[in-house]
Each structure stands twice: as C-alpha cells, then as structure tokens.
C-alpha cells in the first residue's frame, strides 16, 4: 500500500496525459491537470508558511544569533498576510481587486517588495564584472576559447570595436568586430545552444520515462 499506490498513481496519471495529446477530445486535459496542480500547491502553502513561522519562532525563543532579525521577518510576514487576506485598506472590501492602488497590500508591495527585488536583481551588474575578472583567464584551451568569445562580443558592443577594425575592406568585413560578434551569435552560438537543447530534450524525456516506469522513485523518499 505505502509504496505501490503512489507508483501506480504516477504511472496512471503520466500515461493518461501522454495519451491525451493524441486524442483530440482529451486535448485540454493537460491544462486542466496544471490547474489541479496549482490548487494542490496552494494547500502546500500551509506547510511552507508553517515552516517559516516555526523556524523563526524557534530562533527567537532560543535567542540564537541574529534572533532580532527573525522578529522583523515574523512581523513583516504577518502584516502582509493580514493585508492581503483581509484586503486591509482596500476600498472595494473583500471582493475588491487585490492590487488596488490604495490598499495596504499594494502600498507595501510598491514601496518595500518592489525596490528590494529590483535592487537585488541589479546587483548582477556588479557580479557580472567580478565574475569576468575572476573567471575569464586563459588557464587552458577551453577557458581561452570562452574568454575570446566573450571578449569579442563585449568589444562589439563598444565604439572601440568599430574603431579598431573599420580599416578591413568590405570583402573581408566578417572580420570587423561588430560583424564577427553577430556571426558568433548566429553561427557557433546557435549550434551550441541547439546541441544543448537536444540533449536536454532527451534527458527530460528519458527522466520522465524512468519516473513513469517506477525506476526512478527517490521523490517518494525511499531509495530502495
């Protein structure tokens, strides 16, 4: 019971969905199952939210290092949850639109969550620079190829790229850096992407099959 039923459910649901692709009346099943999936995922939020509360309450209770910050998390979580679930400050009441401009939910989103998120994203500008410095070194042949390709593309995006190679006559203008950059993107880059994608496609198909056939069952939490 404990092992066989889940394996059967997986096999049955998966095979059903594969078959539905070939049967026009069942074509929309895939979408429907995705909706069921979303609904189950919302139930899982109880688990997630419960876990979050538990971890931070424990931290506060046992006064572990940085426990004060856990209070920040707890308060922020509960305030936002209340603002969203009870639609606090929403002129439309409980049936109003969740993201109405004056509602607490939207104000907190606009002024706290949104700037924090986009700043975190913007840190990438710094990390792109440090990664370039640290990792683009001609240590061996593979690394050199990586470095040269990146450098050509970068150069092609600055006025220097055009300057340095504009003397090359039109018959050989593939060698001008901006053209070379475009060529790398549309030639070798495309080939590489495609090879990776074919591999991924196969890998996923094979992995799905392993799951359906019950060969791969670690997700059930027993590795035997």
């Amino acid at each position, binding site marked *: 019971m404990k092992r066989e039923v889940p394996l059967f459910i997986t096999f049955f649901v998966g095979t059903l969905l594969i078959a539905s692709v070939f049967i026009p009346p069942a074509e929309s099943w895939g979408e429907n199952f995705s909706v069921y999936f979303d609904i189950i995922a919302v139930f899982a939020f109880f*688990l*997630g939210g419960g876990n979050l509360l538990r*971890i931070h309450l424990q931290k506060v209770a046992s006064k572990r290092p940085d426990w004060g910050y856990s209070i920040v998390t707890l308060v922020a979580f509960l305030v936002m949850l209340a603002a969203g679930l009870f639609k606090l400050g929403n002129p439309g009441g409980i049936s109003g639109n969740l993201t109405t401009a004056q509602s607490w939910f939207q104000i907190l989103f606009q002024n706290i*969550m949104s700037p924090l998120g986009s700043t975190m994203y913007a840190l990438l500008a710094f990390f792109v620079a440090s990664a370039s410095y640290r990792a683009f070194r001609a240590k061996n042949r593979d690394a050199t190829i990586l470095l040269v390709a990146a450098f050509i593309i970068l150069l092609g995006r600055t006025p220097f790229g055009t300057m340095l190679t504009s003397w090359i006559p039109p018959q050989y203008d593939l060698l001008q850096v901006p053209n070379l950059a475009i060529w790398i993107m549309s030639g070798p880059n495309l080939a590489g992407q495609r090879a990776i994608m074919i591999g991924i496609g196969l890998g996923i198909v094979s*992995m799905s099959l392993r799951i359906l056939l019950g060969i791969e069952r*670690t997700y059930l939490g027993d590795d035997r």
Partner: protein
Amino acid sequence: MKRILLTTTFLLLLMGVASAQADSAAPSPPAPPTGVKAVDKPNDHGHAVNISWDMSPDDGKGANSVVTYDVFRWIPAYMDSVAQIRAGLSGIRDTINILDRANRKWSVLEEHLTGDSAKLANDSVVAAQRIPQLRADLKRFRQVLASAVERLPEAHKTYPENGSWRRVGTVPAGQGKYSNVGSKEYEEPDYLPDFSDFYYRVDAVGVVSTTRSSSEVSAPVHSSGQWFNTGRTTVLVFVLAFGFLTVLFVRKARAGHDLYVRPLAGIDAVDDAIGRATEMGRPILYLLGAGTAADIATIASFTILARVSKKVAEYQTTLIVPCYDPIVMSIAQDIVKTGYSDAGRPDAYKEDMVFFITQSQFAYVAAVNGIMIRDLPATNLYMGKFYAESLIFAETGALAGSIQIAGTDEVAQLPFFVVACDYTLIGEELFAASAYLGREPLLLGTLKAQDYAKAAVLLLAIVGLLAVNVGHEANVEWLMKFKELFKVID
C-alpha cells in the same frame, strides 16, 4: 406644412441624384473566387470547418481590386430561435449574478443605513429572495435549450429554404483559406453543431463593401471530432521508439550486462566536496533551485540530494537545504530523512536542515546570500532550475570561498555557472547524474537508451540534411519536404 413638403421632396430628389451618381461612380466588382471547398477540420474535437478557395483573378493581378474575402455560411432560421433561448438563459444567469452581488453589498451595510439608502438596501434584499425561483427557471431553460440543440442537424437539411446567408469571417486579399471554428459548448453564442449540413460561399470584396461578387456554393460538409490526431503521428512514433529502447536496455541491464559509462568530472567532484567539508568542519549548502515539482530538473535534483544526504550523514557533516517551493520542501524533507536513516544515523537528522524561505525569486536570493556569507559553507551544490539568480549565488559563493558544483537545464543560465563555478553539469548531464550516482544497472540502462536515441538523431540529421540538399539542388519536392516530418503540427 407646404414648406416642409417642398423641402422633403427636394431632399428626396437630391438623395436620388446622389445615389444615382454613386451608382455610376461605383467601380465594377472584382471577379469572384472559384472552387470553394469545405472540409471538416482534421485532428480536432469537432465543431470546426476548413474552407479553401482559388483566389479571384483580380487578386493581386488583373484589375487588382480585391481587398478582402468574406466567408458566408448558410444558417437556418431555426438557429435564431435556438439563439433566443440561449439569450434568455444568459439573461437569467446575469440577473442572478446582479441580484446576488447587490444583496451581498447591501446586506453588509443594511444596519448602518438610513433613509433612501436603507430603502434601497431593503429592496435589494427583498429582490434577492427571488434567486431560488430564478435558479429553477435557469434549470428549465437549460433543458429546453438542450432539446432544441438536438434538432439543429435536422434544421440544416432544409437548405435552401427557411434560412439565410451570414458572414462568418473575413480574410485579407492574397489568402485562400479560412477556418470556421465554433464553440463546442451549446450555451456559447458561437456554438457550431456537429453532423449538420453546412454550406459555404465566399465573396470577393472591393474597396467599397458593396462592390462584391459571390462564388458558387460549396458542397455540404459535416464537422465532427476525431479520435486520433494524425498530425502527431511522428510524435507517437518517437514516443514508442523511445519507450521501446528504454525497456529493452533496462531488461538487458537487469539480465546483468555490464554497461560502461564515461566519467563526468562534476559527478566525481561531489564526493570529494563532501569529504572536504568534513575536513574543514563546515556545512554543505544544497539548493534545489527556483523550480517547482512541475520541473523535471527539480526531480532530477531530488535524486542527487538523496545521494548527497546519505554521504553527508555518513561523514557526519551538516547539511543546509533552503527551499523556494513548499512542495519541493516537503519532498526534500522526506529524502534527507531517508538518506540519514539509510546511513544508519536517523537520530542525526534535524527538522531544520530543510526549510522554506519564500517563493519570491529575489527574496530567496537575498536570504541564501545571507546564509552563504554567515555560515560559510565549504561546498555549495546548485542543482535544478535556476534563473537570473545563478550568477548572484555563484559569485557570493566564490566570495565565501566555497567549492561550487552546479547543474541546470536552463540554457540561458549555463554560461554563468560555467564561468563562475568549479564544476558544471551541462543540461543532459544533470539528468544523467542520478544514474551515475546511483550506479544502479537499471538507471544505467536508461542512459544507454538515451545514447541510442542520440545516435538516431545524428543519423536522422545527416540523412535529413542530405535529403534536403539533394532535394534542393535537384529540385525534388518530396525530398525537400523531408524535414517537414519533424515539424510539430498543432
């Protein structure tokens, strides 16, 4: 009175002259399209018809006067009475919704209101008492509609009596086909009944919509659903072939054939990295990525986590698994717990090893960054779906001096992992990793099947390429079409 009469006469005259002028000024209509054919739309669940025609001689050439084609279908008058029943039905539905809404709004406010508003509120609440009655009506209407719809094929048989031509679509000049797709739900206004005789006609229309000419009427056609989508036969062939290969090699593996697999640097590094963490006495950070359980990459990551947690338990190192998705967290908890009990140390498993952070991409990044800098893990493993956060993780990890091993099938993020991490499992290698780590013959058998599929790809690509090139050079139509076999038709 007389003046009015005079004015009217004058105006009428003027209009007559104007219309006569318009008539004489109107350009001659374009030649009609010919050969209108209507067929049931293939590979669908019915309720749709494909119409095609030979374009008018005046389309793009000749007088070049076609602007659009109007597609007409003959519709029996009975269809209108069905539509009326349907309109009644949706009218009742709307009324119920309105009363419902008003009632809810007012009943909340009722006790706080005075004067006119109170009366209004009271009215709404009283009106709402009719809702059950309306629901009964709705039910009755549904039955009437259902039986009315059943007679539609019958009504179509009366062609050309008791009906009229209605425009069902318009396409710009230069095109010779149109799909008349209706709804399969008979409560929708655009419902198209199956198994009814449909007649189609196409008009070529000039700049002024009155300059038009009609084609012959097409032969009657039925729309109907099919049980198999022939457009996807190639896909089915691939599914069966791949399934066959996998089962074959799994059986072979079961029979005890030894299967070779080449070493993968990223996989070998995993064990070393766990050892290193033990020596340094620092924890191991394992990220399952920003994917959900709906991503195969995440499931592949579970199998690697199973292996890692068992090793970690054996070496008595600490494991940190911050999660992005609650379902993923649940599964990961089970896996780590099993890993510890497999290693014979169930007591060493702690509930807070695997925990949930948030389902917001950059908040997750912010928190994981904090963990990396404060707990200084010796090894960071990134396996699964990663998006823009990949480089932020990898750089922060490098700053904290951790050994980093990544694996993802997100093509756009692979460059960042390859550049910033010590080892990277590229795409397919991530899915192969579970088979590698487990060293189970069954899993290795599926790898072999995968390789055969790849060999088939190479072969197909070369054959296809030859076919396309030979076809292109020699102008052989069917050879050039070879690649169409792989095109995915919807």
